[in-house]
């Protein structure tokens, strides 16, 4: 029981990072109806910028803030410079741009930070020495993990306030619901889309830094699997539901952690191990999607004939 509590907590903290990146995906999806394949690599690039600033002597928190500000500008530029003109050209253009961006950003990271191929040492935002933990109900809860979870929940709460209580959030929801009508009633759709991309980039930069902190290093390949799991989380929760993304991400982390620690003496355990835990997570998602084709909290699109 104590062990299970431990695994659940470990799962929650890694899941919170999936949740964060998934939130970035949802923000873009709601605005544009496309999955941003480059979300993970945008996060990777921002994380490397954070690393570089920190390496130059800035404190980590300041480096993260500056990197987030740069990500905001970068995300907005990607939307204005690439996505918006591409959108007009063909239905598949945004997908291709995102894939191209994925490849270009990944290689650009390798070019600008030549040592990132092997992995660069990355500091954690929270104390992460071996004895930095508190005991609650007999399970040791590492302060770093609690910290990450708390940051993610705080960001989620902020996003909730942004979506539900502010004018810009209202405009974002309008655009998500029906871009054409939103434009007709005077919502500055273009600005909202630009803001969505910028916001997604910022969320990605924070998520990337937290992930790198947990891993204590950042390498070129590290964000691809995060992107995959985040997109799985977003789909599980429903691509247009921010709350769903968070719940999807957290439950994905917990499932992964529980399956990864599946007892060795139980049935079929030889087929389940550390490396199959993600496979099991994806199978569970498949089952959920079969029962609820638009995700747990997503809204099904009603089609007009």
């Amino acid at each position, binding site marked *: 029981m104590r062990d299970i509590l431990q695994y659940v907590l470990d799962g929650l903290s890694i899941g919170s990072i999936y949740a964060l990146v998934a939130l970035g995906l949802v923000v873009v*999806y709601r605005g544009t109806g*496309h*999955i941003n394949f480059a979300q993970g690599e945008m996060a990777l690039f921002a994380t490397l910028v954070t690393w570089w600033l920190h390496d130059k002597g800035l404190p980590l928190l300041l480096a993260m803030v500056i990197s987030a500000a740069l990500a905001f500008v970068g995300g907005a530029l990607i939307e204005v410079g*690439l996505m918006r*003109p*591409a959108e007009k*050209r*063909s239905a*598949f*253009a945004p*997908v*291709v*741009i995102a*894939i*191209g*961006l*994925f*490849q*270009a*950003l*990944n*290689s*650009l990271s*390798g*070019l*600008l930070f*030549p040592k990132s191929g092997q992995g660069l040492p990355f500091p954690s935002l929270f104390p992460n020495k071996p004895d930095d933990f508190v005991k609650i109900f007999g399970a040791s809860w590492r302060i770093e993990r609690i910290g990450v979870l708390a940051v993610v929940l705080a960001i989620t709460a902020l996003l909730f306030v942004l979506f539900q209580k502010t004018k810009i959030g209202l405009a974002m929801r309008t655009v998500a619901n029906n871009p054409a009508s939103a434009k007709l009633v005077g919502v500055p759709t273009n600005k909202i889309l630009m803001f969505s991309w910028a916001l997604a980039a910022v969320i990605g930069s924070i998520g990337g830094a937290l992930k790198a902190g947990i891993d204590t290093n950042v390498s070129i390949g590290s964000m691809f699997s995060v992107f*995959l799991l985040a*997109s*799985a989380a977003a*789909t599980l929760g429903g*691509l247009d539901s921010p709350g769903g993304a968070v719940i999807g991400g957290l439950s994905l982390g917990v499932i992964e952690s529980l399956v990864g620690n599946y007892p060795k003496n139980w049935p079929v355990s030889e*087929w389940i191990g550390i*490396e*199959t835990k*993600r*496979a099991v997570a*994806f*199978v569970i*998602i*498949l089952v959920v*999607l*079969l029962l609820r*084709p*638009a*995700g747990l909290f997503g809204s099904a*699109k009603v*089609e007009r*004939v």
Partner: protein
Amino acid sequence: MALNIKSGSTMHWVLRALVSVALVVLVWRMVSGADPSSLGKYTEAMALAIAAISLNLLFGFNGQISIGHSTFAGISAFFLGYSMRFWDNKPFVSLIEACVLCFVIGLLIGLPALRLKGPYLALVTLAIAYVWPTVAAKFIDRKVTPVTGESALTKFRVNPPTWTGLKTTREDRALYLFWVALVLMAVCYVIVRNLRKSRAGRSLVAVRDNETAAAVMGVNLSRTKTLAFGISAAMAGVSGWLIAAKIGTVDENSFTILNSIKYILALILGGVATLTGPIVGAFAYYFADDYLKQHAPHWDWLPGIFGKGPIASFLLGVLVIAFVFIAPQGIVGLFRRIGRKIAVVQPEPIRPEPIAVEPTPSAELAFDGPLHQTIPQPIDEPNL
């Protein structure tokens, strides 16, 4: 003013003959005097083309996106290696078996796909592509390594049969596989082309354009969609078989999500929902990639930091992005737009008295929807 060519007229036949001659010359130029390594590249490009054709059938004509096609290629590649090494099967027997296997698995995956749409379907197929390497690694661990002691399926060779007069040297094997690839690609092309022009193909497109409307018109939705998935999966299997036959070694990392993304790029760059698009796109993508990999690291004029590292991969990404702006409807779309200014092939009207409709070069025509059977299409695919 564009030249107006009636479908079936002498001019049209001359045009067709010219295109055929050009293609024969192209193939002849590829083969004559080519060394094994460039023949191998053509073979790989054609394997990519087959995968893109299969994806075009599913995505372009039926509207179902799949990021899981690398899995079918992987299954088929493993099947070739395993059946040749462990059951002493003939390569072509294993091709047929692998196709049947992929078809069945494709049908099975097509069933849940019935309930899922767009990005949700993309994710489920992505999950399949993501899970495949772990399954493949387990398979190698349990079935291959205990017997061969190696962590991959290795050393299976597809040798030319004796009637071809080719020997089992590296050169002759490359030549043989080139022809095999060409024939397989042609077969896949013809299958998709004939499907597209038949009743089945029209129901595929109807389902893509509007499921509800298609169902109302009497299209059996579930049968159409699962069959499309099955056929497409079998074709992706052909592609994987070809790659495995060419390389002779497969392991769990031979077919990953990145391969699926490559198929999608090849298809979209060539032109979605066009018949020749996947082939053109696959060759363009493969050789752009190949050219950059070979030459970009030696370009001295690039500024300092760009001189080393993954510069080829970066430039490919930039090229892909730039391409969207140069040819948003794919390479075939671009050529259609240019070709339309030179000559227009008017298909024979379906009604005896055609409605007078000016051929309008609109962007929509790239997606030849069901409506266009009554509208004279401005340009036809080069019918071979």
